[in-house]
């Protein structure tokens, strides 16, 4: 199929999965006629009809709550939240129902729904169009969380999420929606949840990242070369997490820097560091360093570059670690 932008790969996945499985249905604000504010759902309503690509009222808890009911009626709903920070009204449904309903039926009923949304900062947008909410999702039992960093994974992880019998939240890094371009397999393409990907082999230290932080980590690895050989590990799926890949890389390099856009406290980098502190402590040649957003409200966009992890900050952390 050739090269696609990341957002086009999302759109492609939706086309393929709606075609493949007549019980898949897309719903959300402006996903129909408009094709979504990022055009991720463009063409779906024309192709599959207004009943399988549904423009909903402006009510996120309503979207996710009705999706629970749609599952009970035999559908596999794919909900779009228009932006990261506008998904919070639906957290109640997510935590109290989406993550618990299969359990509540003692495993008898499935809730194969997907919540996908553009997320993350760096896009020069008004307030609250920049959040990285993965902690809220990943901490919640009963849901899975995937975050692609390139077009092929965006397609494959979304396909996996749609086919998964359990609820999956897919966070799509909007910063690289239209800058990440790459080869995407045509037709059905599935990247199993729970498999990390070594984007670049290295021997001196590991940069652990996901989403838009992966290309950033790659640039940092470039910067560090030839001074040091950095491995870049793209987690791709935060839950389930490919712990083996993480531990293998840590064992190999003995030095780990974790990069995340979200605020630091209880961000996913903390979980990565905690796993390393528990299971890899004897492999480590130095501290586990985190390069993250700060514990502050995401700033005015003229200042956002100071908030977002930068190549410079990653390189600085790597150098400190290498020197330790």
């Amino acid at each position, binding site marked *: 199929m050739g090269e696609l932008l990341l957002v086009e790969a999302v759109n492609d996945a939706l086309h393929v999965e709606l075609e493949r499985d007549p019980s898949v249905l897309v719903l959300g604000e402006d996903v129909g006629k408009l094709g979504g504010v990022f055009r991720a759902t463009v063409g779906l309503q024309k192709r599959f009809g207004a009943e399988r690509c549904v423009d909903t009222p402006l009510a996120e808890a309503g979207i996710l709550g009705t999706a629970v009911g*749609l599952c009970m*009626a035999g559908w596999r709903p794919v909900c779009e939240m228009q932006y990261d920070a506008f998904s919070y009204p639906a957290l109640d449904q997510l935590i109290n129902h989406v993550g618990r309903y299969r359990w509540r039926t003692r495993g008898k009923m499935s809730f194969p729904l997907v919540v996908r949304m553009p997320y993350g900062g760096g896009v020069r947008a008004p307030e609250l169009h920049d959040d990285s909410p993965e902690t809220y999702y990943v901490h919640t039992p009963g849901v899975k969380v995937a975050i692609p960093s390139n077009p092929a994974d965006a397609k494959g992880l979304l396909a996996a999420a749609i086919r998964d019998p359990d609820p999956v939240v897919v966070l799509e890094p909007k910063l690289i929606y239209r800058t990440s371009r790459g080869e995407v397999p045509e037709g059905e393409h599935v990247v199993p949840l729970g498999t990390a990907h070594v984007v670049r082999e290295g021997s001196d230290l590991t940069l652990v990242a996901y989403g838009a932080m992966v290309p950033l980590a790659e640039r940092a690895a470039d910067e560090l070369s030839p001074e040091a050989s950095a491995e870049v590990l793209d987690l791709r799926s935060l839950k*389930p997490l490919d712990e083996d890949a993480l531990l293998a890389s840590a064992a190999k390099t003995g030095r780990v820097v974790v990069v995340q856009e979200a605020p630091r406290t209880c961000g996913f980098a903390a979980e990565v560091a905690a796993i390393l502190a528990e299971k890899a402590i004897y492999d480590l040649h130095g501290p586990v360093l985190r390069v993250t957003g700060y514990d502050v409200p995401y700033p005015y966009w003229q200042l956002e570059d100071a908030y977002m992890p930068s190549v410079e900050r990653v390189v600085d952390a790597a150098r400190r670690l290498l020197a330790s």
Partner: protein
Amino acid sequence: MSRVLPAEGGLRRVIGDGRALPDGEVALTPEQHLDLYRRLVLLRTYDERSLVYHRQGRIGTYAIFWNHEAMQAGSELALEERDWIFPSYRESAIGILRGMPASTVLSWWRGHPAGWWNPEDYNVASICVPIATHVPHAVGFAWGSALKGEDRVAIVYFGDGATSEGSFHEGATFAGVMKAPVILFCNNNRWAISTPVEAQSAAETLADKASGYGMPGVRVDGGDVLAVYEATREAVERARAGDGPTFIEAVTYRTAPHATADDPSLYIDEERVAEEKENECVGRYERYLGRLGILGATQVEETRSEALEVMRAGIAQAEAEPPEDPALVFEHAYAEPPSSFARDLAELRRILGG
């Protein structure tokens, strides 16, 4: 076919008082009446026994639904078995009207896994604990069923307090827009724990909310099982005809504590409670059937002891449930549990075993 009369305060009513207030009629055969009566008594007995079991320490916290039976049995009767019920904790036992064993519901209140059922077995969703959050579920189910061309109606039960929640509002909004075949059944028992309905909403009636969602709003005497049946039957017809959702406000008064842990003496009007108890819904129907000559004292006794027998068997079965293995903690969260769960369980077993 049926005659529904206005009651005081504009509520729909069928059952009179045998004196000044005339009885109305509904199109039910004597057998159907007796079946409905049996269901009412089953619920009543379930509720009264549960309170006893709670006092005896045999079940945990329990949400009493005494005098709410007419709303539950009356509305359920208007449904077909293929229709789905979305209960709140106040309708915890509604499944027994659908053939669910009493032991299942008792197990739920005992915190035993045997209390959690497969909704598809009875077309009864799980008991919803967080207020109003199941309204969108029912709406999604009804909408989704209609999309699939299936003729299934959903009914969702919630309280007066629930109408203040955003979830109620969003569910109702979707219901209207999607023309979902769903019935929003509001048990207005005038209290949300200690908060009276006047402190809940400034609306004159909760049914006033319906037009804001583009659906009809109906007010009915919640102590009148036949009026509830009639109102629900009409709503079901409307839903099946593709005319969308209905909001039913069934008005009653909470005569029991909110739940076993509650102390209503701190807030409630005891005189009003006493009045309401006088006029409670099972007795009202009993007297109505007596006036029709359908129900006699022997049948009342028989029905009650049958129901008591169901409960005796139910609690015995619930108490006979063996304790579940801790492995269950790790099951059912996911279709395929992550590998860490097996490690966690192994560790836990090692520790518990030691």
